């Protein structure tokens, strides 16, 4: 019987670059920025890293293929470096590789880094790109907001909501994240907005408007992980350990079988159940202190809170409008601004979420510090509602 990953690996150090439109920074610059902070936080030398996992979501576009761009940028010492790509779950996937390597005993200290350089396209939004020989023949030419708008229409139909109520809740999701982003010096978008502004903004893909979309950002984040014993031997205290690491990947059932109606994220429900089992969490809404979920679009966050069992099914609108996930609410969500305002450099996002959790658990989150958080949940969703990859990581005090 598998024992799971709980408490086998701790975070030795983390780093995160400033996210945003980093016109002046190359992918290498972003990687170095996150890595330098991470090394300093871990208190080790580059040469002590034995293996590394490198995540970039849209690789051919910016950083280039293979693990070499990272090995070269960071001058890693000819160690094994593995390139991973799993769409928006890429950062967590890199983290999973490093954590599993340490847990297996194959190495003592491992590095996970994610990076994305999205602002070299010459236009706003994510890059328009091919989806491969097969899919390009018959898939709609969907953009990310177009794909996630499907979730909004599916959710609205399932729960028989009127357009205005759902749009207002979606607006509140973004208003909350903007308010949080103001307090985060590394965030891409740092200004408050009002519900009315969000409601009145032009549609990008109905019903998703401009303020329902997350930032498209450049950035990098990384983590160095090791065993609890080694961390203690290095004099580390207040250790933060990995409680759960789960991944659920669509197998085509949602997109091709009528058992799924488009109103929820099947992978998130599956990954959440597994993560709670792995972490030994029985009552997630009570036991989890904070969440960083994949708010690529406001509707994704709203539905995800239900799929994570943190809001009752069909009651997400009420929970959001009641402020349950606001900074002062009973379960703060995106306290760092989230994808919405911290920004969403695809390959870095999973690690950015863990970074915020880690700072909060260590009491180092500055003006946005939560009172005594104990357990954090991070959630990524790569792809589209009908075909996606869901990753969940949970970290807490050892």
């Amino acid at each position, binding site marked *: 019987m598998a024992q799971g990953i709980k408490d086998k690996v701790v975070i030795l150090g983390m780093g995160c670059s400033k996210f945003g439109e980093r016109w002046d920074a190359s992918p290498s610059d972003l990687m170095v920025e996150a890595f330098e902070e991470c090394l300093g936080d871990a208190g080790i030398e580059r040469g002590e890293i034995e293996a590394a996992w490198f995540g970039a979501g849209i690789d051919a576009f910016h950083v280039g293929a293979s693990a070499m761009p990272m090995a070269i940028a960071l001058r890693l010492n000819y160690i094994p470096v593995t390139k991973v790509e799993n769409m928006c779950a890429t950062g967590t996937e890199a983290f999973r590789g490093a954590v599993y390597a340490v847990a297996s005993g194959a190495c003592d200290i491992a590095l996970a880094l994610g990076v994305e350089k999205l602002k070299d396209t010459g236009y706003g939004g994510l890059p328009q790109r091919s989806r491969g020989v097969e899919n390009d023949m018959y898939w*709609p030419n969907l953009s990310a907001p177009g794909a996630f708008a499907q979730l909004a229409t*599916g959710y609205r139909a399932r729960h028989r909501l009127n357009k205005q109520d759902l749009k207002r809740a979606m607006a509140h999701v973004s208003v909350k994240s903007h308010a949080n982003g103001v307090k985060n010096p590394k965030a891409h978008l740092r200004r408050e907005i009002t519900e009315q502004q969000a409601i009145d903004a032009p549609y990008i893909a*109905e019903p998703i408007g401009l303020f329902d979309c997350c930032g498209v950002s450049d950035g990098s984040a990384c983590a160095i992980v090791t065993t609890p014993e080694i961390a203690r031997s290095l004099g580390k205290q207040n250790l933060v350990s990995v409680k759960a690491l789960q991944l659920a990947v669509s197998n085509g059932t949602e997109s091709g079988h009528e058992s799924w109606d488009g109103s929820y994220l099947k992978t998130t429900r599956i990954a959440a159940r597994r993560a709670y089992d792995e972490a030994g969490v029985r009552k997630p809404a009570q036991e989890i202190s904070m969440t960083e979920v994949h708010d690529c679009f406001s509707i994704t966050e709203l539905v995800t809170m239900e799929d994570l069992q943190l809001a009752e099914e069909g009651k997400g609108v009420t929970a959001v409008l009641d402020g349950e996930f606001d900074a002062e609410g009973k379960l703060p969500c995106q306290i760092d601004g989230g994808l919405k305002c911290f920004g969403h450099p695809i390959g870095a996002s999973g690690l950015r979420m863990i970074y915020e959790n880690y700072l909060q658990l260590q009491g180092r989150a500055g003006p946005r510090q939560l009172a005594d958080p104990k357990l954090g949940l991070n959630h990524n969703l790569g792809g589209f509602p009908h075909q996606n990859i869901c990753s969940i990581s949970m970290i807490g005090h050892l």
Partner: protein
Amino acid sequence: MSRGITGFGAYIPQARLQRAVIAEAHAWFDASLKSLGRGQRSMCNWDEDTITMGVEAAADCLAGFDSFAPESLYFASTTFPFLDRQNSVVLAEALDLPRQILAMDVSASQRAATSALLALLQGERAGMVVASEHRRAKAGSRAEMLWGDAAAAVATGGGPVLAEFVGGESLATDFVDHYRGGEFDYDWEERWIRDEGYLKIVPEAVNRLLEKCGAGAEDIAHFILPTDQARTPPAVAKRLGIDPGAIVDNQAATVGVAGAAQPLLLLAKTLESANPGDLILLTAFGQGCDALLFRATEAIGGFKPAAGVSGALAASREETSYARFLAFNDLVERDIGKRGETDKQTYLSGYNRRRDLVTSFVGGKCRICGTVQIPREKYCVNPECNALDSQDSYSFAEKQGTVLTWTADRLTFDWSPPAYFGMVQFDGGGKLMMDFTEVREGTIDSGSRISVHFRVRQFDQQRGFRKYFWKARIIETT
């Protein structure tokens, strides 16, 4: 056993461009266009072309049969998207016809469809002629206002026919009223074309035909003479002694004259309302003349295409943007944005593996669990089954379905934004994320009913290729 017409169908694009907007745009240059500034003309949507309209017209015709397997399929047009890739074969596969068929493109003449029809009727095989035209004229020309886009189909065979083929006559004369050597037509003076062309060549062919068939001009109940010259049919009828009341209107101010598709479009229209015993004279003019004589039988009222010309005429929407017409017909070089720069290459070997899905819209039905699915993959999609290689072919082309989810995407590249797409649940099973076409803002929601249609999916301008796939069209709003 008599041979003749056994079925017919038609298709006219929904969009009808108001001719006033064309006249208005060009009045500064050519004030005479104002005289044509009333009425409308059909125009292809950005995702319609000669092939997609042909598929619609053929399907409209085939819907009137319990079963009909044409042995020959002739596709007539002067505006085929491919100069060398048999367009009729694309048509045949989109119709999911058996592969054992003689498919042939007929082109380079306004008589293409009538010549093909003659060849078919004079042979032994049961077949179908599909004629389709997506006409392109220079901006500001009279042709731009007088022409339209449309398609029609006529099925032929023996046995109980709707209209018996009485006889046919052809004349080949290199009278160059117009020609197309480059991108656009070049023509000569209208009056000369009428006096030296129509009025001399058509009567010669028709008189020989009538004589051969032992029929009198005064017996003709329906006289079809495709032309964009308003005064020519009455002049020719008068010269021949045909009752002016028999002239079938060329629909210049409602649909526009549809080139090589016009003879069959008007024939289909005539067959919808002809009475038993009516003599129908079908002619086509262009480097000579074809003349075909039909006699409607007692069965004439018994055939019902899915929509027919009358249905296609009724399914219209007013288009008032001349700029959109120019863009859809590639008459202006427009800025499609950087998102439009993405490579749109079709990998032909990949396409070949998926022809059944992409062109014929065939999915699978699992022999073990009965689950209907599209696309058909190696393993059944039903999570309770997942059987290997268990699916029989299952066609979705005539299916209807219900919209589960949808959006109007204004970010992604689309030739006519916003891009509407969403998840469709088909009646009887099967689910697919697909594009919608012909969506009118505010008429789509979860629960809307759809039918599916063969359309252009993407243009690869770099390589002169175009991709086709099936799209959903709203037929009923919730």
